[in-house]
């Protein structure tokens, strides 16, 4: 998968008009300088050669160097990845926290008012553009009420360099016991992760509901009910536990959506993460960094689906690896 996506992106980038050299130098630069720079960056070689060079390096886990800035590709990625992970983690947590209970709630009585209500919520929320949700929250809670900050990871007065080590600000601030800074970091996480969480929760409502409906129809639920097990226990202990297996499996597929949502959330909340890095570097035509970001995204998706498979095996005793 990494291979396929990378090849695709590699070709797309090379076909794109404009290149790192023209992005970097003005039209002012003489032709000789332009050609020189292109040669320095290896852009004058045939695309096939460039591709083989790149793949060769990648095989040694070397993402190469930025063509615009003097930095290794891994540097900006390692700087920005924690921001994205923090955001997606809380976004996911929140969407599960809203989605699963609501899905169960809906499934308990199919075609009842609450079922239609929950499904309407799921559909409406799914159709809300992430960025619009973000802007509305900014408008209400950031501007009108002034409760939450609407951008960035920390307040300007918090000196990030004082605690930043891993790039995960939550971990970093707790590690050195700087609770004021920790509070500030959490404070900044609220609106972006709520945005992401709400928009994605619709999917989990749908997933949970569908799977719960399946499970609640099964024989052992009927048996449990027949035995007189309280309805609440039937639903949560017997039902939800079994429905969780397919939900976890589907979770892997939703990650692509989560990452896409994260890009838009980052751009709305000026969140210094991977999505913004990608957009910035696309404008600069910084090929190696764009490719590096794609590699990370694909790895991310692949790793998640692997984890999901393992998790699946752990939950479902019938599957053995």
């Amino acid at each position, binding site marked *: *998968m990494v291979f*396929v*996506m990378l090849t*695709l*992106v590699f070709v*797309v*980038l090379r*076909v*794109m*008009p404009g290149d790192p050299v023209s992005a970097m130098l003005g039209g002012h630069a003489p032709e000789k300088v332009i050609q020189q720079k292109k040669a320095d960056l290896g852009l004058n070689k045939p695309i096939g050669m460039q591709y083989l060079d790149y793949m060769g390096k990648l095989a040694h886990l070397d993402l190469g160097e930025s063509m615009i800035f003097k930095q290794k590709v891994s540097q900006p990625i390692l700087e920005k990845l924690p921001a994205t992970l923090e955001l997606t983690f809380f976004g996911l947590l929140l969407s599960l926290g809203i989605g699963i209970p609501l899905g169960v709630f809906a499934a308990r009585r199919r*075609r009842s008012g609450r079922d*239609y209500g929950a499904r309407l919520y799921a*559909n*409406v929320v*799914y*159709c*809300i*553009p*992430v*960025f*619009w949700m973000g*802007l*509305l929250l*900014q*408008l209400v809670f950031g*501007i*009108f009420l002034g409760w939450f900050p609407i951008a960035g990871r920390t307040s300007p007065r918090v000196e990030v360099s004082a605690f930043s080590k891993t790039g995960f600000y939550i971990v970093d601030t707790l590690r050195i016991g700087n609770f004021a800074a920790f509070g500030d970091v959490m404070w900044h996480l609220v609106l972006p992760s709520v945005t992401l969480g709400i928009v994605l929760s619709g999917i989990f409502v*749908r997933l949970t509901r*569908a*799977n719960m*409906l*399946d499970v609640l129809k099964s024989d052992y639920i009927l048996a449990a009910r027949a035995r007189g097990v309280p309805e609440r226990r039937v639903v949560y202990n017997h039902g939800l536990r079994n429905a969780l297996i397919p939900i976890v499996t589907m979770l892997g*597929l939703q990650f*692509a*959506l989560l*990452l*896409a949502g994260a*890009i*838009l959330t980052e*751009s709305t909340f000026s969140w210094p993460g991977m999505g913004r890095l*990608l*957009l910035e570097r*696309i*404008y600069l035509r910084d090929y190696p960094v*764009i490719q590096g970001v*794609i590699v990370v*995204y*694909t790895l991310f*998706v692949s790793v998640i*689906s692997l984890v999901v498979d393992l998790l699946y095996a752990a939950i479902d005793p019938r599957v053995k690896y």
Partner: protein
Amino acid sequence: MVAARFSPAGWIAALFRWTSSARRKYGGEWWLMVAGVVVIAFILTMTVFPHLFTRFDPNDQNAGSQMTAPSSSHIMGTDNLSRDVWARIVYGAQTILGVAIAAALLSAIIGIPLGLLSGFAGGVFDRILSLIMDSVYSFPGLILAIAFAAMLGPGVINITLAVAVVYIPTYFRLVRGQTLSIKEEVYVEAARAIGARRGTILGRYIFPNVIATVVVVLSLNIADAIMTEAALSYIGLGLPAGIPDWGMDLSMGKKFLPSGIWWMITFPGLMIMLLALGFTMLGEGLAEILNPRLLEK
């Protein structure tokens, strides 16, 4: 499902049969679908007869004064260039709806034949194509669309292409999967036994059976395409200025947010949501009625 020959009249008749019985059978879903159809119809009318909805030109920079809140003369207020926000929404519907429908159709036109062929032919061709499509499918579509949009540059046709690329695998996977299972059905075996040509089998027996699910997916797909188009416009990779576009108007309003100019972002976003919701509800309703298990898979 039966091996029906593909004829439009037969289809419409079938659709009618479904609808009348479905209304009785699936009360809620029926109304869900109707609500979707109403929203779509409303916005569709807007694209065809925009002048019936507003007396302002979307590019009229003297429609009112700069950034006035909604009032009786400008129901959704005016933007920073004194244009009427509602007029921009009415005329902007053409852009987003056109792009989304064209993109969804385009990806269906490419994805369906590829899926049919791949599922029918099998072998190395199928495996390679499946690998590519699966990779693209599991990758965040928006990122791919961003890459293509950046490559192609702004423009209506370019953005349509960028959005279309993302959804090709959706159709491919769906159709390929169905083709694989239908291929094994008795009536296909029978057709093969009486010496029907491969093209005939594909066109007469397999395609019509696949099409039902495609209709559902197409509707849901348009909803997704609407949001992808809006997202691309919002991050500035969509259309050049001069064409009214909801996503772009929304991003233009962003910088006036701290001044409390809420109407420039609220209404275009609301419309994007409504339109996407319309197609989702239609798709879901159809799905539940045509094949209740489709969405749960």
